[in-house]
């Protein structure tokens, strides 16, 4: 069981004055049987009042508006989360043959999580990879794990190879992508095989300072590369009789206590952490900074030193300059 304190800062910098900015954020960690959200606080600069609701997937959505002119918008979300021990991924559970016998029933119950979406179409090109995963296992968990490993091994992790609106087609064409694309690829494979899959947005907690120190001098591992920009995405598969199991195709394994879940949906479009529209002709730049630290150490003392920090700056898409109303999305 691990407890973390999270600080997620999103900053939009506009080239000129903007106004009537309306935003919705999905930044409050999920509270369910696998993790507990102990506290959550949201603030913005310029200051605003916010209200919240649960969307149809059960995610917390907070919304706020800023009417007055401004040139930067800063959104700060602070939370404390306790992640419970990850469920064991046993491969002696329901077989693919047994699953196929109840496929119609599952399809009826989980319709939304089986249909192709804008980000996750079902390209026939993936059929071969699905067959390969099926050859590796005769049960649902084994298949899902094999599919996740195939995505991990056959696609290159490369920032800039894709962008925020890239689909499974784009990732297949480039052979590379980031965690969002890896999660979408795995979802396409699961759903095309008839297994309900959902997209998870969240954070990956980097390994602790101490563990990193032991590796001093070694090149940064995949975890650390992502850790500098702790926002992460992965997928969950529905296993009849067991429930939802998390798989991380970017790292190649099952999810662990280092995975903190923020929101679930059909694809990235359902869970974008920050979305908004505003009035103005200005272009925008986005910067995101996520800091995660264990809230208490093994003896129960509160840790003061942050284990990871690292602003990552990404240029947002250039909006058409003549449009009166523009959108922003992280």
């Amino acid at each position, binding site marked *: 069981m691990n407890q973390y304190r999270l600080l997620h800062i999103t900053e939009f910098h506009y080239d000129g004055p903007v106004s009537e900015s309306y935003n919705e954020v999905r930044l409050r960690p999920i509270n369910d049987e696998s993790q507990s959200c102990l506290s959550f606080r949201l603030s913005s600069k310029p200051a605003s009042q916010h209200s919240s609701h649960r*969307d*149809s997937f059960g995610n917390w959505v907070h*919304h706020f*508006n800023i009417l007055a002119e401004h040139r930067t918008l800063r959104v700060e979300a602070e939370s404390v989360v306790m992640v419970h021990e990850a469920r064991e991924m046993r491969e002696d559970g329901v077989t693919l043959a047994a699953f196929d016998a109840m496929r119609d029933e599952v399809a*009826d*119950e989980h*319709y939304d999580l089986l249909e192709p979406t804008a980000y996750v179409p079902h390209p026939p090109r993936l059929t071969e990879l699905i067959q390969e995963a099926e050859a590796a296992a005769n049960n649902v968990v084994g298949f899902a794990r094999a599919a996740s490993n195939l995505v991990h091994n056959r696609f290159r992790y490369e920032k800039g190879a894709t962008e925020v609106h890239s689909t499974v087609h784009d990732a297949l064409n480039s052979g590379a992508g980031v965690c969002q694309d890896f999660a979408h690829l795995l979802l396409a494979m699961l759903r095309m095989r008839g297994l309900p899959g959902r997209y998870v947005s969240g954070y990956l907690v980097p390994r602790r300072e101490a563990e990193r120190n032991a590796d001093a001098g070694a090149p940064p591992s995949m975890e650390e590369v992502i850790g500098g920009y702790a926002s992460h995405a992965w997928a969950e598969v529905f296993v009849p009789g067991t429930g939802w199991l998390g798989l991380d195709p970017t790292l190649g394994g099952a999810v662990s206590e280092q995975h903190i879940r923020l929101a679930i949906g059909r694809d990235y479009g359902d869970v974008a952490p920050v979305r908004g529209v505003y009035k103005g002709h200005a272009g925008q730049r986005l910067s995101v900074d996520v800091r995660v630290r264990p809230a208490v150490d093994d003896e129960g003392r509160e840790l003061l030193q942050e284990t990871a920090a690292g602003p990552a700056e990404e240029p947002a898409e250039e909006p058409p300059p003549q449009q009166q109303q523009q*959108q922003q999305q992280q």
Partner: protein
Amino acid sequence: MGILEIVSPTQAPHVKNLFGHYDTGGFYDEMFSSPGVPRPHFRHIYQTLSTMRPEVFEERRHLADLSFLLQGITFTVYSDGRGTERLFPFDLVPRILPRHEWDHIERGLTQRVLALNLFLQDIYGPQRILKDRKIPRPLVLSCRHFRREMIGIQPPRGIYTHISGIDLVRDSKTGEFYVLEDNLRTPSGVSYVLENRLVMTRTFPRAFELDQVLPISHYPAELCQILRSLSPHGGSDPVIVVLTPGIYNSAYFEHSFLAQQMGVELVEGRDLVVDCDVVYMKTIRGLTRVDVIYRRIDDEFLDSLAFRSDSLLGVPGLISAYRAGNVALANAVGNGVADDKAIYAFVPEFIRYYLGEEPVLRNVETYLCSRPDHLEYVLAHLEELVVKAVGESGGYGMLIGPSADGAQIDAFRRHLREDPRNYIAQPVIPLSRCASYDPASGEMAGRHIDLRPYCLFDGEKVIIVPGGLTRVALKPGSLVVNSSQGGGSKDTWVLRGDA
């Protein structure tokens, strides 16, 4: 602005009797029970018209057109590439319904509106009907107009379908009325109902016994009463607005007409602003809080934060205000899931499921192309069927098999194979006909008609102004009555009695 076209009065050939060459053509004729024999409820009108000199009729017709033109009652056709504003052709011969027929229609519409509203409450709430497997879940969840954003939102007083326009046709084979489609989003046309009656009374002040006709002029007052009742703070003087996409919308005339009739503001999206989940109207004296919005903007353009981010027509933040219960919207968001043309096939089942009643008005037989067996049948019989795209309205996205050419049929065959869920098919209904004036011959001729009554729902009872909009296919032989496709309209009378 488009160019306004009016048809100048044509010089009719010399005709002695307007009904001189009238032929019922084997269809159910609303006016005649058999050739030359008017039905009892049409007897007075027939007597008046058949003894009227054709020049007099022609002159009245010109006056009526002028009256519409001077009031600026026009609509826009989108697909003809010219964006032309046109007069909605008005046919002076009224369509008359005897009281007993109307009572039957009213009973049928009332139960249908109640069931549709209960379906919407259910589908955005507990989804009991899906759990009980009365309708396939995939069919509902795959509707383009199903709004997941609405799940869990409680619209004021549980009303989704404040205003419904339900299209009825009479089948010549049986003489019975059938429901052709439900319009539960932003049905338009009621302004023509009211204006047609006004023009009719002006054009023939004495000729017709209008005192035998049930009045309809209370529609705006009934609508306003329902809108007032939705006010979130229950105050005595709520601020109501009509929200229009603007002057280029085909129904802009109606938006301004209804706002004026109800004595409320007509606004566009840019006139409203949301702050902390409260909607305000920008006025010269500052911001005024808005309580109720009769919106005539489609769901997906209503709020660029919740729906299409490229929409400039709506009000960002509006859905948050709606969810917070600070503003009421009529109609509710997400109604399109209930008037989807594939869902339509299940409405009789909704009536049995939610009300425990048998449907009073029957549906037209419908093939769901999402079902492989139905699709196969439809593909083999395209030449005999009407195929419709499920999410469209206004006669767009439609194939009428018997009158289509080979290329059109081939195109639909491709569409159906590519996206079967998006289509339904129905047999061609030989619509009943009503005597209508044919300017080319200067005589009366039978033309196919339908009927769209407007149903208001106040949360307890359904209020229907007697009659509705009778649309008429003015082209000889045409079955398409939509204004966008060259149709016109008639004044619709419901008599106090049966004759």
